[in-house]
């Protein structure tokens, strides 16, 4: 149990960061991260030396996050989380006003949150967690070429989003 505690201590921040960017909700991120580590605890005996630990860990986290996103009231949760973020980080009342506030960080978060899940997970794993294309391909169980195209489309959609709502940042 001590070894597992050390493992959680070491990886909890990257996992929570990934989950948070995937869900845009801190509460959901913690729940998913918790579920991830619990699943990992159950899978520790089956881990093989040839499996990169971080790949396995983020594969579990990604599946848990996708399950969460597919869950009930997915859309409502996202909107609710965005509204909370808006209320906490800006004085604007609604999403539209929030977008107009030219709060670059909030705008960027919103742009990421609106990406399709397959683009968002690739972008988050690359930008927030620093995985290379090969590692991302292993986590997402897809070819490296797919990772490359998904990343490009994700960036392009974010760029267009930012250009649409205000190009101060760009």
């Amino acid at each position, binding site marked *: 149990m001590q070894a597992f505690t050390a493992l*959680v201590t070491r990886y909890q*921040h990257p996992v929570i*960061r990934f989950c948070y960017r995937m869900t845009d909700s801190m509460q959901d991120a913690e729940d998913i991260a918790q579920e991830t580590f*619990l699943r990992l*605890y159950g899978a520790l005996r089956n881990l093989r030396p040839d499996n990169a630990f971080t790949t396995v860990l983020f594969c579990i986290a990604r599946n848990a996050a996708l399950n969460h996103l597919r869950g009930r009231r997915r859309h409502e949760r996202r909107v609710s989380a965005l509204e909370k973020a808006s209320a906490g980080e800006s004085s604007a009342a609604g999403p539209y006003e929030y977008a107009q506030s030219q709060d670059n960080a909030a705008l960027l978060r919103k742009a990421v949150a609106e990406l399709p899940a397959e683009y968002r997970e690739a972008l988050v794993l690359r*930008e927030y967690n620093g995985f290379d294309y090969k590692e991302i391909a292993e986590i997402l169980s897809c070819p490296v070429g797919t990772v*490359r195209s998904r990343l490009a489309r994700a960036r*392009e959609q974010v760029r267009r989003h930012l250009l649409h709502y205000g190009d101060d940042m*760009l």
Partner: protein
Amino acid sequence: MSDKQREEEWAERISAYLDGEYDEEETISAWLEKDPGAARQYRQYQKISQGLKDLPEPSASSDFMKKIHLEISHQKNTAQRRRRMGVWAAAALLLLSFSWYRYMIIVPSAETPLPDARYASGESEVSIPAPVNRETVETELTEYALWTALKDMPEGISVADTLAQFEDMPIEQLMHSIAEMSWNADDNETFGADRVETWHSWPFTGEDALSDAFIFVETLDTAEISAFNRMLRIVLAEA
């Protein structure tokens, strides 16, 4: 290749170049220097990347680790409880199976008669009827049948002597012997030729032997009964 496809390909190259994942970096560098639009797009991607990295870091709640430990402990306890319940369930099932087996094998069913009340009341003397001996019954019946036939025997012949030796002779053998005798004797006229022939052809075997013999005797008239008795005694004497 359409414009949209071309744009996507450029975006893909620029994105991969930004990540250091494009093999022909020199080609891309040269292209970015020549194409201002591509260069602008590249810079915008850089800003987005930097902006994402600069977003505030989410921090886990202080009890994050505690929650995980609690959940693991809960899962362990649940697993132990399930294992324990499984063992108890298996034991209960085993006991139930044994009880059922014992009930089905040992405990009498509804069709099994209950013990006599006298056993329950503790009475020591219980009269048990003697078993029925079929041979005894048959012998008695045979004696009765023949006695009926022999009751009118002429005087001077001991019926008791006849019956004394009759016990050990099967009715089939007796009747056939008499029939054989009557067939060969001079008493045909006494019995009549058709009567003797019928008598001789009757099997007098199996379950119907006694009843056949009885019926035969019952059909005899007085003269025939006298002849039959005489021959019967001879047969029994020879036997």
